[in-house]
């Protein structure tokens, strides 16, 4: 196990190097002159030159990359071109908002997805199963930003939980202090993931239920409840763990759309605003932070998957 963790850790090094190179390249892949674009139209040559100097764009590429990585490791991602504040400070203020949004959404997705998937598997090929799977297929096919808009509309028209619509007000930072304000964004982001987890749980459960040891358990005279929940579910959940990790990461990225709809001041909105205003250091910073976090999550998922699987092997 330790050996596996070390090997897996070593494997992430080239990935992280690749990620930094790609993020670093963002500014250099811009068609035309990045400094000119940042300066805006009609800027004087002197202004453009100043920006170029400040971003170190006159140095050779490998020096620029070295500086970029060296600074990033020390938590310095440069300064925003628009606000002049350090990128890391701006991200720090918003990081937990997005993290929380993704985290709660994961819980909702796992909760809804597991229930739906288990019901579907236990009653496979019944009307219930078909209905649940059709709903899941819709959940999978729905743009979540559209679903979010519909939720806002329904809640507003039905006048349900007016507090949940408080979200539409811009918040300087962080969540409101009322849990009801979290409901709509979390539902918006979590539903698509729930559909994926439901489908995954169902097929994984069906595969396990078909196996010999489940027949043995049934033959022993155990009740169906114990067979399903104690024997089948435990093993069926292992592949689901992988998806849950991926979903959490996907939510971190997908938060861009949800945060835009609900005017949440998280990292997603920060990224979008930075893209709109061509604030390249800020774009680089948010993209780098989210992807490094995703790499770490994937690492944890792989290790826990291995751990769970190993226990099975030993049994």
């Amino acid at each position, binding site marked *: 196990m330790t050996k596996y963790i070390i090997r897996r850790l070593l494997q992430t090094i080239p990935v992280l190097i690749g990620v930094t190179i790609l993020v670093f390249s963002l500014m250099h892949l811009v068609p035309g002159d990045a400094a000119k674009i940042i300066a805006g139209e009609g800027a004087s040559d002197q202004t453009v030159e100043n920006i170029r100097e400040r971003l170190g764009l006159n140095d050779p590429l490998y020096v620029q990359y070295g500086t970029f990585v060296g600074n990033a490791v020390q938590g310095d991602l440069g300064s925003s071109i628009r606000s002049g504040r350090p990128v890391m400070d701006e991200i720090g203020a918003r990081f937990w908002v997005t993290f929380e949004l993704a985290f709660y959404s994961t819980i909702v997705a796992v909760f809804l997805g597991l229930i739906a998937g288990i019901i579907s598997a236990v009653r496979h090929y019944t009307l219930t199963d078909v209905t649940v799977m059709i709903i899941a297929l819709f959940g999978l096919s*729905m*743009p979540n930003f559209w679903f979010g808009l519909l939720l806002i509309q329904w809640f507003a028209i039905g006048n349900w939980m007016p507090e949940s619509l408080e979200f539409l007000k811009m918040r300087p930072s962080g969540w409101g202090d009322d849990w009801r304000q979290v409901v709509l964004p979390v539902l918006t982001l979590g539903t698509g993931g729930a559909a994926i987890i439901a489908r995954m749980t169902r097929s994984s459960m069906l595969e396990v239920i078909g196996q010999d040891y489940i027949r043995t358990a049934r033959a022993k005279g155990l009740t169906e409840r114990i067979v399903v929940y104690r024997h089948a579910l435990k093993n069926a959940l292992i592949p689901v763990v992988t998806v849950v990790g*991926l979903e959490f990461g*996907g939510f971190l990225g997908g938060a861009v759309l949800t945060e835009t709809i609900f005017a949440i001041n998280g990292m997603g909105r920060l990224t979008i605003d930075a893209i709109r205003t061509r604030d390249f250091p800020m774009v680089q910073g948010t993209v780098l932070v989210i992807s490094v976090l*995703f790499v770490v999550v994937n690492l944890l998922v792989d290790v826990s998957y291995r751990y769970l699987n190993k226990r099975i092997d030993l049994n």
Partner: protein
Amino acid sequence: MSEETVNHPVTAKKVNPQLESFKQFWRRLAKNRAALIGGIMILFFVIMAFLGPWIISTFTDWEPNKTSVANKLQGPSAEHWFGTDSFGRDIFTRIVFGMKLTLYVGFLSVFVGGIVGVILGIVSGYYGGKVDTIIMRLMDVLLAFPGILLALAIVAVLGGSLTNVIIAVGIFSVPAFARIVRGSTLSVKKLEYIDAVRALGASDFRIIFKHILPNVMSPIIVQASLRIATAILTGAGLAFLGLGAQPPAPEWGAMLNEGRQYMYEAGHVALFPGLMIVVVVLAFNIFGDGVRDALDPKMKK
């Protein structure tokens, strides 16, 4: 990879093995209800995308970009089936004209990403060794950007336009193809007949295109149809953020974004484009699920 396609029965009759497996593919596909329903829906959308605008401009005086302030934000009626938007434009007409854009994003991006991904996957699986390591690490890097983030970063660099969305979503699709094709190539490569062909002096190029590619086709087709669904959603998301097709293009994601401000007074403006995205994406998902069941007997329960 199914055994059947690989070891299909060779009778004394002279048969073209590729044609046979192609026929077999269609037979199995036609038997699968989900694949059939999804396929018919997709066909309908494709026809609508190309004939719809022509029918509308020939037989009616509806135009996708004709504004009429007097008629703005009207609900659905006999005159305006899906109502009108904030500029008084007919939403139904815009949706019909926008169908082509949605399918463009779906098909073109997956086509571009698929070709690159398939080549990388086959090369990686076939040659193995250092080439494999480098290609797969590269794919890992692309996969390290969760969800829409990679496409977003690419559009951030290139600037917002329909073409750039297609490029971005295409790059976003590459790793999925590369991984799946690599896996299938590895298992096909081990089969004896590949050794036999090689012993007969076939070149790598010939082995790859003549023998490996046809045998990894089914996972590619499954992946492509599911990927088109994702691509349409991602493209619509980028357009919704204002980074895709620019107004007044009747792109559904962009229409949703325009309708967003009128959620309370005129919900239909955002309702219909969203509903259309759901239906089209649903068709590709149903088709993909069906194709997977039809082509991969292992997955069948």
